[in-house]
């Protein structure tokens, strides 16, 4: 057992740290550190710099821009990126559709889609959930009927995150409604968002932001060569994808940065004769969150260094569960630090900008225990897969 990084790992970390803090524009990183909403241009600009240096899709096969790294190196890549406040490459591209195409797609699909996906010349969104298919994803109803050399898609997708920026959508569609098992009749289809028959409507969220969308498909003709892998095998690909979605979802580095910001503000906030950080009640809760985050960081290190093959591990449910809880706890602390200054929103007044953002962010982060498989589902996975219950 050895706590420290090896000399090689430490050198690798230092190199990345230097790259992130010198090559990614400081104004982009400052906006991320301050938690200033979502800036699509920042994400695209940053991902293209990363991609030009083979740092956007290290999890992909080497021939498509990936890196032959150890699991620990992959974790360092992510941790340092988060600590340096570099916008993470778009998950839908790099962790979801890219790996699926690389693993299950034909050579033609790989050549056509992987390079622009890595470079975010194509912005992807995820067409999985539907109004009647949330956690119970296999009950999805959007259909795709084979008609000549195309599929005709009809139905509705829901909770399509950042769909308003997307050029393409990867969809789970039902190609065999009469399959004996619901999971058996599902296919994985790539669809250009500008295809006639697609309507997108952004949904306003409780923080006032627009992050998710509803997408309708009405007789949308999709060329059959945009099917990934084999027809009716989509469920297998989706499970592969969802396993990837949950890795790195803990957000340890991001929460660390946010907690450090919170501590800075608490030390500036007067309470009684001292500051909020001197207040034992507040300090106790803050120190507990810090300690729980350390426990999560160490657990993530254990999972990563133990998963030699890099395959998804049921322990990723533990990381997702605790990671989301601690992200939320941190946003709660920020609201409490802001106090009455949390009330105004978007005004150029005495209330500092971070304080004005605290409550909307808190509201927004309730999503973390819902997306990527809600925490109740993670509990079920832990109970059944790990504990055998």
């Amino acid at each position: 057992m050895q706590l420290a990084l090896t000399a090689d790992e430490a050198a690798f970390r230092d190199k990345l740290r230097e790259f992130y803090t010198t090559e990614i524009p400081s104004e982009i990183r400052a906006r991320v550190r301050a938690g200033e909403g979502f800036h699509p241009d920042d994400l695209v600009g940053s991902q293209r710099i990363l991609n030009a240096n083979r740092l956007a899709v290290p999890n992909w096969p080497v021939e498509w821009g990936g890196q032959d790294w150890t699991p620990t190196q992959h974790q360092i890549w992510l941790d340092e990126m988060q600590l340096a406040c570099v916008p993470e490459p778009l998950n839908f591209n790099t962790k979801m559709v890219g790996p699926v195409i690389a693993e299950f797609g034909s050579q033609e699909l790989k050549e056509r889609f992987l390079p622009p996906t890595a470079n975010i010349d194509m912005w992807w969104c995820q067409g999985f959930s539907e109004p009647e298919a949330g956690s119970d994803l296999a009950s999805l109803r959007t259909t795709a009927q084979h008609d000549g050399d195309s599929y005709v898609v009809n139905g509705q997708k829901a909770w399509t995150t950042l769909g308003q920026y997307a050029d393409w959508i990867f969809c789970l569609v039902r190609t065999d409604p009469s399959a004996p098992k619901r999971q058996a009749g599902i296919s994985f289809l790539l669809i250009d968002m500008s295809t006639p028959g697609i309507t997108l409507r952004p949904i306003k969220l409780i923080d006032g932001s627009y992050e998710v969308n509803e997408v309708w498909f009405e007789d949308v003709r999709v060329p059959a060569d945009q099917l990934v892998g084999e027809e009716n095998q989509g469920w297998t690909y989706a499970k592969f994808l969802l396993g990837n979605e949950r890795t790195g979802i803990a957000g340890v580095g991001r929460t660390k940065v946010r907690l450090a910001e919170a501590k800075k503000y608490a030390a500036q906030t007067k309470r009684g004769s001292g500051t909020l950080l001197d207040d034992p009640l507040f300090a106790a809760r803050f120190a507990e969150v810090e300690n729980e985050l350390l426990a999560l960081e160490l657990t993530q290190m254990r999972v990563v260094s133990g998963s030699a093959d890099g395959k998804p591990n049921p322990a990723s449910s533990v990381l997702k569960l605790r990671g989301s809880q601690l992200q939320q706890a941190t946003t709660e602390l920020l609201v409490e630090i802001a106090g009455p200054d949390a009330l105004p929103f978007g005004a150029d007044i005495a209330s500092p900008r971070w304080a004005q953002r605290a409550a909307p962010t808190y509201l927004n982060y309730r999503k973390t225990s819902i997306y990527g498989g809600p925490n109740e589902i993670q509990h079920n996975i832990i109970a059944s897969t790990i504990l055998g219950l």
Partner: protein
Amino acid sequence: MDFELSDEQVLLRDSARGLLTRSYDPESRNKVVDTELGWSRDVWGQLAEIGILGLTFETAGVGPIEAMVALTEVGRRLAPEPIIAAALTPGVLIAEAGTDEQRRLLERVASGQRLLAFAHTEPGMRWPSTEPATHAAHDGGSWTVTGRKNPVPAGDCADTLVVSAALPGGGVALFLVDADAVTRLKYRTFDGHRGAQIDLDQAAAEPLGDAVEATKVIRNAIVRTQSALCAEAVGAMEEALRLTTDYLKSRKQFGVTLNKFQALTQRAADMYVSLEMARSMNMYAAMSIADGNLDPVVASRAKLAVGQAARHIGQEAVQLHGGIGMTAEYPVGHYLARLTAIEQILGSCDDHLHVLIDRLGDYDVVTL
């Protein structure tokens, strides 16, 4: 970064697990706990044979990780032998502060022939205080120590005591005191362990090393002890969760086994999450010591996390068993008792939280 045990460590774990599994099932364990001694000299001898009694002081390069591995097995079986109290903690004090001749005593400790105890805590003195009211006096060529020590884990059976006492000119030193030179009131603790209240009335004492300030030696030994206690707690939590999941899979109500009820399985999943977080912090504490970093803050971080998990897992383990969990015959309640005791030894959760709060303004992010 490597969280794997070495082959030798795996071997040690397997020997300890094998020995303790052979020695104790819940019924035989309860029987041994009810004897006057409260533990088994036969098992003690076998623990000595596989090298567990000298883990904190015997061999260079072997230590904290091995102690963690062994104590996890002790916790798993709730073995009542006072490994930490009668060997590891006082042993490392002698190893660090003792003269060559005093250190020779350790061979007999490691071989199981001599029992020690660290008489440190006093009425009204709580961790992290290291300022005892017990005081040492020097007269001619000899020292005496006077005061009351309580609770002293393993104080009931120890042959030799390592006693902390204030020096006449200030500071705290350590002394070796023969158990025959003191008055002791022996008792059983609520979790089945043993201890004693020890009164020293000008008891003849031999300075451990020179009669000099030993606060740092004491603090270091306490850090090691806290890590060992964390490991014992992790073993106990693991077994408490295993008992609980086994029970949920076998107990039937409403015509089905209890694992058909999500209200129960989701809570078991939370116990698992708590266990894994505590296990990580336990490893962190032991690995830090193995790196030569005897940082009390790291120990506090671990003991806080383990203490919180212990309460959660211990309480839920009994609750998910229902009535059977309340009975002394069934093992799960004994795990709750031991976990509760560990939380109150060398700093409670709140005590350790205070340590963290006091340093909160000194750094922006926690670094390993």
